[in-house]
C-alpha cells in the first residue's frame, strides 16, 4: 500500500479493516489506522512462507507424558504482520517453543477442544475426563491438561470427581499472554511437566506460587480457586496448604504428606454428570422470584452469607423446592471457613427444611460435586450423605486455616 497523508507518502502492508478505518503496517513496523481513500494498492505482498514445521526428535529413554489441550495457551506464535497470536498444540511445536521440556519427558499430544475456558461446559468436562482416562490406559506416565485459567478450577474438580488416577493429571495455564517474553506459560508448563513426570498420584493444578519466577505451587483440584483476575499467582489453595511446590529453574518437586502418591489405585472412570444443577450467590434483598429459574432442577448450590444463610423469607420457597426433589446445598460466599447452620435461627430453619450443609467446600467445587453425585446416585438420602462425605479431598474434616 502507498499511504499519502500530509506531505509525504509512505509504504506499508494492509492488515485489516477496523471501525471503518484501514489498518496498515508501515515499513517502520508501526500500525496506524487511516481512511481507506488515503491508501492505494501498489502491489501484493509476497505470500508468507509456511510456518516453520518439522518434527522435534524426542529422547526415547524418558517417560512419556500426554499433553491434552483444551484451548489454553502454553505455546504460541506471533504473526508480527497482523499481530495474530496462534496457539500451538502439536508436541513438536510446543517443544520448539519450550525446548527444555525435552529434558523431562517424551510427549504425545491430543486436542479435546479449542475454546476459551468461559465456553467450557459439563459435556466438555466429560470429554476431557474420558480423554485423560484413555491416555492413562494407553500408558501415559502422566497427563498435562492445558486450559484457560478462567474456569480451570471447575474443570480440574470435575475431572477429579469423574476419574480415579494412579498417575499425575496436571492442569496448567498461563495468566499473562503467551506472546509476551514475560509470559508465565513456559515456567508453568515446565513445572507441570516435572509434576506429571513425578511422584504425584492425583489431579492437580500447577501454577505460579508467587509473582516471582521462582516456584510453582501444586494445588489439589478440589481445593483450588482462581483468586485474582490477572496476577501470575492467582491460583490458591483455599483453606488448605498446597500439595507441594516445584522450584524453578531447578524443577525440583517437593510433595507434602497430604499428596496422594503415584501408583495408588487403578484408573477408573465414572463420567455421569447431572447437568440440571446450579450455583446461586445470594445477596441482601435478592428477590424470591430468582428461584423460579431453577424450577425442576435436580440440584442447587447456594453461596450464602457468612456461616451459610439466605433471607428467612426464602425458607418456605426453598422447602417447596426440596420437597419437589431439588437437592439444596449451602456453601459460603466467604470462601474461607466452614458452613455451620446450627448457630443462628435462620440456619437452624434451613437445616430443618432439608438444606444440606456443604461443610468447607468451595461453592464451585460443591456445584461440580453435586452434578457428579446426582449423576451417579439416585437415592436422595444417599446423595445427601455423599455431599457431606469427603470423596476427593474437597471436604476437610478439620479446619486448619
Amino acid at each position, binding site marked *: 500500500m502507498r499511504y499519502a*497523508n*500530509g*506531505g*509525504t507518502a*509512505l509504504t506499508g502492508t494492509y492488515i485489516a479493516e*477496523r*471501525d471503518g*478505518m484501514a*489498518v496498515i503496517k*508501515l*515499513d*517502520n*513496523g*508501526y*500500525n*496506524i*489506522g*487511516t*481512511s481507506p481513500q*488515503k491508501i492505494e494498492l501498489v502491489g501484493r505482498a509476497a505470500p*508468507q*512462507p509456511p*510456518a*516453520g514445521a518439522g518434527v522435534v526428535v524426542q529422547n526415547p529413554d524418558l517417560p512419556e507424558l500426554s499433553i491434552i489441550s483444551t484451548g489454553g495457551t502454553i505455546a*504460541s*506464535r*506471533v*504473526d*508480527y*504482520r497482523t*499481530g*495474530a497470536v*496462534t496457539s500451538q498444540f502439536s508436541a513438536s511445536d510446543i517443544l*520448539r*517453543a519450550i525446548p527444555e521440556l525435552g529434558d523431562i519427558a517424551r510427549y504425545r499430544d491430543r486436542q479435546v477442544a479449542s475454546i476459551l475456558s468461559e465456553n467450557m461446559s459439563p459435556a466438555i468436562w466429560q470429554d476431557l475426563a474420558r480423554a485423560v482416562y484413555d491416555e492413562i490406559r494407553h500408558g501415559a506416565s502422566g497427563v498435562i491438561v492445558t486450559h484457560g485459567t478462567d474456569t480451570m478450577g471447575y474443570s480440574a474438580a470435575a475431572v477429579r470427581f469423574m476419574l480415579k488416577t494412579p498417575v499425575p493429571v496436571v492442569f496448567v495455564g498461563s495468566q*499473562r499472554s*503467551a*506472546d*509476551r*517474553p*514475560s*509470559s508465565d506459560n*513456559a*515456567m508453568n508448563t515446565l513445572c507441570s511437566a516435572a509434576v506429571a513426570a513425578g511422584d504425584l498420584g492425583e489431579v492437580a493444578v500447577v501454577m505460579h506460587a*508467587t*509473582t*516471582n*519466577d*521462582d516456584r510453582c505451587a501444586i494445588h489439589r483440584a478440589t481445593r483450588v480457586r482462581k483468586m485474582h*483476575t*490477572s*496476577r*501470575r499467582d492467582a491460583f490458591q489453595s483455599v483453606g488448605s496448604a498446597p500439595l507441594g511446590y516445584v522450584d524453578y*529453574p531447578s524443577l525440583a518437586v517437593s510433595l507434602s504428606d497430604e499428596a496422594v502418591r503415584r501408583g495408588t489405585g487403578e484408573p477408573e472412570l465414572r463420567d455421569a454428570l447431572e447437568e440440571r444443577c446450579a450455583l446461586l450467590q445470594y445477596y441482601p434483598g435478592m428477590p424470591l422470584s430468582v428461584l423460579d429459574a431453577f424450577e425442576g432442577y435436580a440440584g442447587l448450590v447456594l453461596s450464602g452469607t457468612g456461616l451459610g444463610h439466605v433471607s428467612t423469607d426464602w425458607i418456605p420457597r426453598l422447602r417447596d423446592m426440596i420437597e419437589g426433589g431439588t437437592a439444596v446445598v449451602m456453601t459460603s460466599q466467604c470462601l474461607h471457613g466452614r458452613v455451620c447452620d446450627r448457630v443462628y435461627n435462620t440456619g437452624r430453619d434451613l437445616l430443618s427444611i432439608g438444606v444440606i450443609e456443604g461443610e468447607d467446600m468451595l461453592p464451585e467445587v460443591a456445584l461440580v460435586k453435586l452434578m457428579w453425585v446426582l449423576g451417579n446416585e439416585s437415592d436422595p438420602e444417599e446423595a445427601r450423605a455423599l455431599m457431606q462425605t469427603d470423596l476427593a479431598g474437597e471436604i476437610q474434616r478439620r479446619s486448619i486455616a
Partner: protein
Amino acid sequence: MNYQELGLKAGIEIHQQLDTAEKLFCRCPTLLRDTAERTGEFSRYLRATESELGEIDRAAEEEMKLVRKFTYYTYDSVCLVEHDEEPPTPMNPEALEVCLTIAKMLGMTPAEQVHTMRKLVIDGSNTSGFQRTALVGLSGALPDGCLIETICLEEEAAQRVEGETFSLDRLGIPLVEITTAPCMRTPEAVQEVAGYIGMVLRSTGRVKRGLGTIRQDINVSIAGGARVEIKGVQELDLIAEVVRREVQRQVALLAIRDELRERGARVDQTVVDVTALFSGTKSSILKKAKSILAVRLCGFAGLVGREIQPGRRLGSEMSDYAKKCGVGGIFHTDELPAYGITAEEVARLREFVGAAEEDCVAIVAAGRERAGCAAEQVMIRAEMALAGVPEETRKMLDEGSSAYMRPLPGAARMYPETDVFPVVIDEPLWESITVPELLTHRAERFVSEFGLDEDLARQVAFSERLPTFEAAVAAGVRPTIAARTLLATCRELARDGVAVDRVSEDEILALLSAVEADRAAKEAIPDLLTELARTAGEGAGTPQERVDAVIAKMAPAVSQADVESIVRRVVAEREAFARERGMGALGPLMGVVMQELRGSVDGKVVSETLRRELGRLLS
C-alpha cells in the same frame, strides 16, 4: 575531516519524558524514587517468542544468548501494571494531548487512528518484555527544511540499578520519540537540530526537566559505511563529538577492511582448545578459566590492536561481541604479552595454532559453553571486519566513543498491543490543540516588552522557573527583579550552600510581591530567601504568612523617620571621617547604614537620606 566528501548522513531520535500526572498505561504518578524507598522486589525470566516465520527478531535473539534472571525494585507509587501483573489502562489522554501539541508545533500530520504496538525489548528494562509505543504523527519539518519523519508516544523503560536489577519507578512514564530523516550533513548540524527540538519540547512547559529526562539516539552513516545507531546521549554538548567519533570509527574500519582485503585476510573456521598451554600461567583470568579457546585471524596482525576511536580498537569491538556470551572480554596477540601472559606463552600459543607472523590470535577464557559461544562471536565480528562496517545499535561511552550493544532491530519486533484500543484523532480533537509560544519567541518578547537584556531574557525563557517568573510579572512585580531573583540570586545562594530549592514557588512569589509593595527592600532578598530556606518545613503557615514572619524577623519595617535618625547617628559618630572625605564618605557610610538596617529599606532611599545629611554637615 571533510564530512561532505565522506558522505556523512546523520539523523536523530529524541526521547523526552512528559510531565504528566499519571503514567501512560496505568494511573501511577510519574514519580522517580530513591531505591532505598523500595517496598519490595521480585524476579523474572524473559523468553523471546517465535514469530510466524519461525524467526526471533535478531536484536531480541542477541539478548537471548544469555538466559538471565532480572530483579525489579518496586515502590508504593507503582502498581500491578508495571509488575506486568495487570493489563494496561487505556492510553493516558493527557500524554496524548501533549504529544499532539508537540506534533502540531513541528508541523506534523496526525495519524487518524493511533494503534499501540508492542516492541520487543528483552534486556530486562521492561517487565513485560516489550515496550508499548504508538505512532501519533508523521511528516513534520524543521526550520532548515529537515524532515521529521515520525513522532511516537511510548512508555519509558525501567532504569537499571546495576547488573540485572531494575527500578520500576520510571517504567511507564510517557515519552515522546521524535525521529528525523537522515538529513544532517555535519556533526554540528546534528547538535543544532537536537538543540532546536529540545527547545520546542520545553516550550510546551509540559515535559520533564533535568538529567536523564531527555535522551538522544543518533544515527550515523558515511558512504560505504553502515547505519549505526548510538543510544543514550544525554548531554547536548556531546552530540557533535559523538558524530565525529563515529565517522572516525567508520573511516578507520573501512581502512582496516581495505588492508585486510589487500592482505588476503581470512578467519580460520576452527576453534582451537588451548587450555593445556596455559596450565602454569600467572594470568589470574586464564588460571581460573575451565576452558581457553583460540581463534586464528589470518592476516589480521596489527589491525586488531589498531585504534579506531579514542580508547577503542577493533579488538574492543570483538570483545563487545564476545561479552554477549557472558565472558568478561578477550585477549589478542596484538596486545600481548600483557595482563600476566608472558612472551613465552604467546609464542607457544602462536606455534600451537599455527599462526604466521601476519596472523593475530584471539583467546577467550571462561566455562566451556561460554568460551565456545564467545569464540564464535569473535569469528563473527572478524568476518564483519572483512565486510566493512556492521549495522549496529551502540551505546555511548564517556567522552563520546561508543560500544556495541546489539544488531539494529528489524521492523519484525513490533506487533499490536491488543489490550489497548486504538484512539481516533479526529478533526475536533486536532483543532482543539493549541500551540504554545516558542521559548525563543518568548525571550524576544521579554526583551521588547519588559526591557530585559537579551541574555537574561533568554535565561528566563529557558529556565524551569519560567512559570514563576510569569506569575510574578502578572502580579505586578518588576520583570528585572523577578528575573534576577529567580535566576541570579537563587543560583548564587545555591552556590553558597543555601538550600533555596526548599523555598516554594509560592513563597518566592509572596516575597517578590512584598518587595514590590515596599514592605522589604530588594537588597534584603538574599537574606530573606536564606531564612526561608533555613526554616523550610518548620511549623505551618501559608506562604504569605511564612514570608511575613521572615520579613518581621530579618528586615522589620523601618520608617523614614527611623532611617533619618540612624543616618544622623552614623554620620555624627563618624564626623571626623566625613569631614575629611567630604562627599567621598558616601560609599563607606552607606555600607555602615545598610548593615544596621539589614536590608529593610531600599538602598536608593538610604543613599538619598545619607547624601542629604552629609550635605548638611559639610555645608
